[in-house]
């Protein structure tokens, strides 16, 4: 289309029209390229530098990385994010799906219940952390209440048990995100063709089999989205841990996000913090990029 069209006033305006979409997209592109990918590059560099309290651009090769891998807490943090992430994602999905299925049974108070399940997502853990701490604290919350009510043998002390503390974090995190997952599943359920369910009824399938064999397999895209959103939340679970356990007892509930923060800002080990960040980013990329690829490869119908 190089040959100039004979239109007189058209040329400039038409060219503008042709460039306009890219022009409009470019501010976002520039922002993202600079503030996200530029910073990722910067962090990657820092992970090979001798940075301590403040960035220092002396190249030290893999020094920080080897210190990261010999670090005692990093092992715990990795183990925790693995346990936490897995449990968190699985429980949220299972609970969210169950709630969505239950809510999908033409429930009277659906609107109210939906809001109740959804509201925790609205609150930051800076806000709810204290309430959770109380609630799970054996001396103050659930356990004490049960004792007061006469159930003396009731025991729930996970918050202070270094082996179990991570599970209390899971509980609170699940509480927060289940509603959101439920909403996603509910939307997915509502999108399923009602005739198909009727067809299955005619085929003689009982209700639970209809869900197990027909409906749930069709929610695959919702599962994928839910996993992505939850993985995103799990990796960023910083407020949550800080508000509930501060990473304790000991380092029992340290996760990469708290590890990074603590190494960067209280231990003055920015190099290690950067290395851990780059590592986490690589893990996320390994998880997300195949998903993005599969999502974007084919034009959605």
């Amino acid at each position, binding site marked *: 289309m190089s040959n100039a069209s004979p239109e007189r006033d058209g040329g400039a305006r038409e060219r503008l*029209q042709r460039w306009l979409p890219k022009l409009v997209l470019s501010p976002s592109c520039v922002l993202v390229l600079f503030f996200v990918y530029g*910073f990722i590059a910067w962090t990657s560099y820092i992970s090979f530098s001798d940075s301590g309290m403040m960035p220092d651009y002396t190249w030290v090769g893999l020094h920080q990385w080897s210190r990261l891998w010999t670090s005692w807490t990093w092992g715990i943090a990795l183990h925790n994010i693995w346990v936490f992430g897995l449990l968190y994602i699985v429980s949220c999905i299972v609970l969210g799906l169950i709630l969505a299925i239950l809510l999908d049974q033409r429930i009277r108070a659906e609107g109210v219940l939906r809001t109740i399940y959804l509201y925790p997502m609205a609150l930051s853990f800076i806000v709810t952390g204290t309430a959770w701490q109380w609630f799970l604290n054996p001396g103050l919350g659930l356990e004490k209440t049960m004792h007061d009510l006469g159930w003396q043998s009731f025991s729930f002390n996970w918050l202070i048990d270094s082996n179990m503390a991570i599970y209390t974090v899971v509980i609170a995190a699940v509480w927060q995100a289940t509603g959101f997952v439920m909403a996603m599943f509910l939307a997915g359920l509502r999108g399923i063709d009602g005739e198909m369910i009727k067809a299955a009824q005619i085929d003689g399938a009982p209700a639970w089999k209809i869900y197990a064999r027909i409906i749930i397999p069709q929610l695959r895209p919702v599962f994928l989205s839910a996993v992505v959103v939850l993985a995103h939340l799990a990796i960023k679970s910083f407020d949550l841990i800080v508000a509930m356990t501060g990473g304790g007892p000991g380092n029992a509930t340290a996760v990469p996000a708290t590890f990074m923060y603590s190494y960067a800002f209280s231990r003055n080990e920015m190099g290690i913090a950067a290395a851990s960040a780059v590592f986490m980013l690589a893990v996320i990329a390994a998880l997300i990029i195949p998903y993005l690829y599969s999502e974007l490869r084919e034009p959605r119908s």
Partner: protein
Amino acid sequence: MSAASPTARRGIATRAVLYAILGLFAIVYLMPLYVMLTTSFKTLEEIHQGNMLALPGQWTLDPWREAWGSACIGLECNGVHGYFFNSIKIVVPAVLISGLLGAFNGYVLTKWKFRGHKIVFGLMLFSCFIPFQIILLPMARVLGILHLANSTAGLVLVHIVYGIGFTTLFFRNFYASFPDELVRAAQLDGAGFFTIFFRILLPASVPIIVVTIIWQFTNVWNDFLFGVSFASGDSAPITVALNNLVNSSTGVKAYNVNMAAAMVAAVPTLIVYILAGKYFLRGLMSGSVKG
């Protein structure tokens, strides 16, 4: 239907179980909110002796008054209301601008495709997943260079940058379900790029606008990390003020005031969820679920 048939009676029993389960979940879900609310209406003595789950024996609004207007944060005893308005000053432009940019991006990426549009989208989407800790220092430097350090304007910029990924995702998926013919028809009608967007696509985007606003509003309002790092002091958002109030290292903890302050901090997001929750589901159904 006449007399209850066996199937009908079994139906009633199942529904009773159904409602019981849903009700139980609802109670569990409401527990933390309940604890926070009741505590915020109790006196300090009652908290120290009483049961956490009990209703206040003697209701008092003082904790709320104190949290709003006279609780001390550092050496200033003006409550959290100033910070509340800081948050509003941050949330409103951040949500609007990131939403608008996301809408533009979604529009271009679906209706004005160009070579490499998928890569651009992939890059934007991936930006949703970076751990924010790593960008604190470089961001601080950049804000300093831009003279936006320690200001609400700086925080607005930060939230816009890191909100673009999700807003673009939402709008892209939504607009992907719009027929391309719409844009073509408008072109034949003689409409240009912006006219098509503002006159035709945007007015039809209400469901996804609601989803985006809810998501962004919640994220920005509840943000702590950016707030504490880039805008502490007088321009701090409410989460930071709340943290300062709650996390004193010494002294008697005024749990009731803390809880009241926490509720103040939670009210806007709660309102948004309750008011727009219905549209939220609708918006999710209109395409954003699919990834």
